[in-house]
Each structure stands twice: as structure tokens, then as C-alpha cells.
């Protein structure tokens, strides 16, 4: 069934490319006729941003070193650093109930089911279906998606559920007494073995503590631009992690 679907998808791939042509052409045209002053302004903006980022990165090397030394001291494992591959979005699912996008890489390019997809802001979703040259990514806001996360500040673990709304997720089963505040950064916890650990997911936008309810209601806003990003990042897992994941999957009933 999956393979039959992949083949029908392959038939439709040219169509998907074709549908994407107008927006690509529009992008190129606006690149061609862009104002010089605007470019200079953008350039200046990017330079300042670059400076800020470079400043942040300066410290990272020494922090990474320190972190791995501390982990060694604690007899822990080294953290895996992930490679990413830049991919482009070529379509979205026309059914508004489903939050899915289509990217321009498929099984021929080494994409695998469950591969995480990021954008510049944070986690976007995971690959759920693939054809030969395209694959379908389920976004974290889809009503069927759940994502193991933790609060970056104190490591409080929870699960972020999609609600079918494009700019909101919800944390499930958060006790009333949990230390969680508006503005906290939520990152992936890496539990569940699908998503790599430590990527930003969302910011807490509202915490409702209602004594009449068993749990606090925590609404969070994704940091990734789920409905705007065109350039996405596919996270490449190292071979060992992949094997480990496969073994875990086999061991499950």
C-alpha cells in the first residue's frame, strides 16, 4: 500500500513542481526588480544580525568543550551533533484540517520516515510519508501530532500537542504546581527517539491555573514560522542513532 502510494505520488510529482512554479517565478521577479536602497538597508540589517550571532557563537566553542568535559567527568555519553540539509518546501496539503507540507527530497535522497524537520526558528515537524523525490512533513500543529518537550529553564518534561491551529500548541497534563511561566522556552526533550534533543519548539504564551480543573492549561506559541518558511532544514541522524532507533522500534510490540 505504502509503495503503491509512493508510485502514484511519483506520477504527481511533476504536477506538484508545476504548481510551485508561479510562486518561484514571483520570488525571482521580486529579486530582479528589488530597490537598491532596500538592498542596502537589508544588507546593513543582516550585518548587525551577523555581528550579534557571531558574538553568541564566540562562546559556544568553549562551552561545548566544557560541556563534554563535564559529561566525561560524570561518565556520561558525548552529545551527538547533528548535520542538517537545506530543503525547500514545494507544496502544502490543500485540506485545511491537515497541517502538512511537501518538501523536495524523497527516499532517493536518503530521507527516512520520522526524520525531523526544522526551520530557522525551531522544530517544524517530522516526515511521515515519502515518495521517490518528494516527501510529506506532518507539522507539529497538526491535531494528530504530539511532541515530547521540556522547559528549557528547569527541565520540566511534558508533551506538546497540536490543536489544528497554525499558531498554537498545548502542553498536556501539567500539574497546577509546576514551575512554568509565560515566556519560558520549550525545547525538545529527545525522549521518544524521534526528535533530537534541545531544539527550540515554542514559547509559553499563557498559563491558566483554574482550581476547578485537574491540570493547568498551558498554551504555547511555536517559534518556527510554520505557515511562512520556505526553506527548511532536514536533520541528518548519525548512522548509530538510526540503528539504535530501528532496534527500539523492533523491540516495541
Amino acid at each position, binding site marked *: 500500500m505504502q509503495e503503491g*502510494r509512493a508510485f*502514484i505520488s511519483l506520477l504527481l510529482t511533476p*504536477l506538484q513542481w508545476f504548481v510551485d512554479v508561479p510562486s518561484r517565478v514571483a520570488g525571482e521577479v521580486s529579486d530582479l526588480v528589488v530597490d537598491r536602497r532596500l538592498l542596502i538597508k537589508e544588507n546593513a540589517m543582516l550585518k548587525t544580525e551577523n555581528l550579534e550571532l557571531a558574538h553568541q557563537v564566540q562562546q559556544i566553542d568553549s562551552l561545548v568543550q566544557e560541556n563534554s568535559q563535564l559529561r566525561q567527568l560524570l561518565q556520561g555519553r558525548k552529545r551527538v551533533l547533528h548535520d542538517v540539509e537545506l530543503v525547500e518546501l514545494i*507544496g502544502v496539503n*490543500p485540506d*485545511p484540517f491537515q497541517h502538512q507540507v511537501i518538501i523536495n527530497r524523497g527516499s532517493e535522497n536518503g530521507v527516512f520516515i520520522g526524520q525531523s524537520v526544522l526551520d530557522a526558528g525551531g522544530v517544524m515537524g517530522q516526515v511521515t510519508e515519502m515518495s521517490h523525490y518528494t516527501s510529506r512533513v506532518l507539522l507539529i500543529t497538526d491535531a*494528530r501530532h504530539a511532541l515530547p518537550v521540556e522547559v528549557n529553564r528547569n527541565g520540566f518534561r511534558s508533551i506538546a500537542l497540536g490543536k489544528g491551529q497554525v499558531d498554537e500548541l498545548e502542553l498536556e497534563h501539567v500539574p497546577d504546581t509546576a514551575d512554568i511561566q509565560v515566556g519560558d522556552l520549550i525545547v525538545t526533550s529527545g525522549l521518544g527517539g524521534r526528535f533530537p534533543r534541545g531544539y527550540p519548539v515554542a514559547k509559553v504564551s499563557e498559563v491558566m491555573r483554574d482550581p476547578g480543573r485537574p491540570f493547568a492549561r498551558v498554551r504555547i506559541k511555536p517559534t518556527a514560522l510554520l505557515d511562512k518558511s520556505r526553506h527548511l532544514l532536514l536533520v541528518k541522524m548519525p548512522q548509530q542513532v538510526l540503528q539504535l532507533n530501528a532496534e527500539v522500534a523492533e523491540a516495541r510490540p
Partner: protein
Amino acid sequence: MNPAATSPGSGGFIIMATFLVGLMLSQIPLPYVIEWGRPEWVALILIYWVMALPHRIGMGSAFFLGLLLDVIKGSVLGLNALSLTIIAFVTLVLHRRLRMYPRIQQSMMIMVLIGINQLLFHWMQAFTGYTGDSLMFLLPCLASGIIWPWLFVVLRGIRRFFRIR
């Protein structure tokens, strides 16, 4: 004069091309505001061809179109195939009456047909947990009914120009 398409049974490519355009229109990204009101292009074009050429386009074509649409919509393979087949069947039964109706009444009928399509599709989607609880999925039948008179004129023009019989 188009000599290539005067014999009966020709023009299959043209029909396929209209379906391809329909498949494309049904996956063009729309702004969030009007995304819910996307007309069901493929179903509309299918209804037109079944109405105009019931001896050529029928439930078989509907089934294959539905499979393609399933892949585009990312639904379980066969859901759209089933709902489009049912639509094609109803249109086959009704095609003589549909042809006689004035344009407005035709639009009403189309609204009902597309409504059946949407209900069937989302009812089956709900079994697999793919759908939400909003009733907005019925909006496309309104949009389809509104777009129908124009689509009808365009498709009839194509059919007459290429003399598809």
C-alpha cells in the same frame, strides 16, 4: 475546424488536460482566509464531463481521479475514489435532468452533489482521525455552486471548440 478531433471518441487528451488543470487548482496554496472555501475543482470538472459525455466519462474515470486526489490530499488511499465514484453515479442517473435545468437550478444541484462529496469524505476521514470538529468543510460546496455557471460555460466552450463527443 479541428480535423484531429472530429471522429467520435477523440479528444480524450483534452478531457485529461482539463482534469489535470483541476488537480493543479486543487493543490495551489491559498491564503489562510479563503483556504476553507476552495471549490472542489476535480469533482466539478468530473460532474461536467459525466453530464456532457456520460458514455465516455463515468465511474471508472471517477475512481482513478479519486486515487490521484487521495495522494494530493494525503488521505487514506481510496476515500476520494469512493466519494467521487458515488458522485459520478448520482450524476449519471441525473444527467438528463441536469442538462434541462436552468443554470441557477443546476448550481443548486451541484451544491447538493458537492455537499454529499464533502460529507462522505469527511465522515470517512473521521474514522481515521484525520479531521477536526469544525463544520467549515461544508464551505467548498457553496463555493463550488457559485463557481459552477462560469466553469460550465468554459468547459462547454472547450468541448464545442474541440468537438468532443
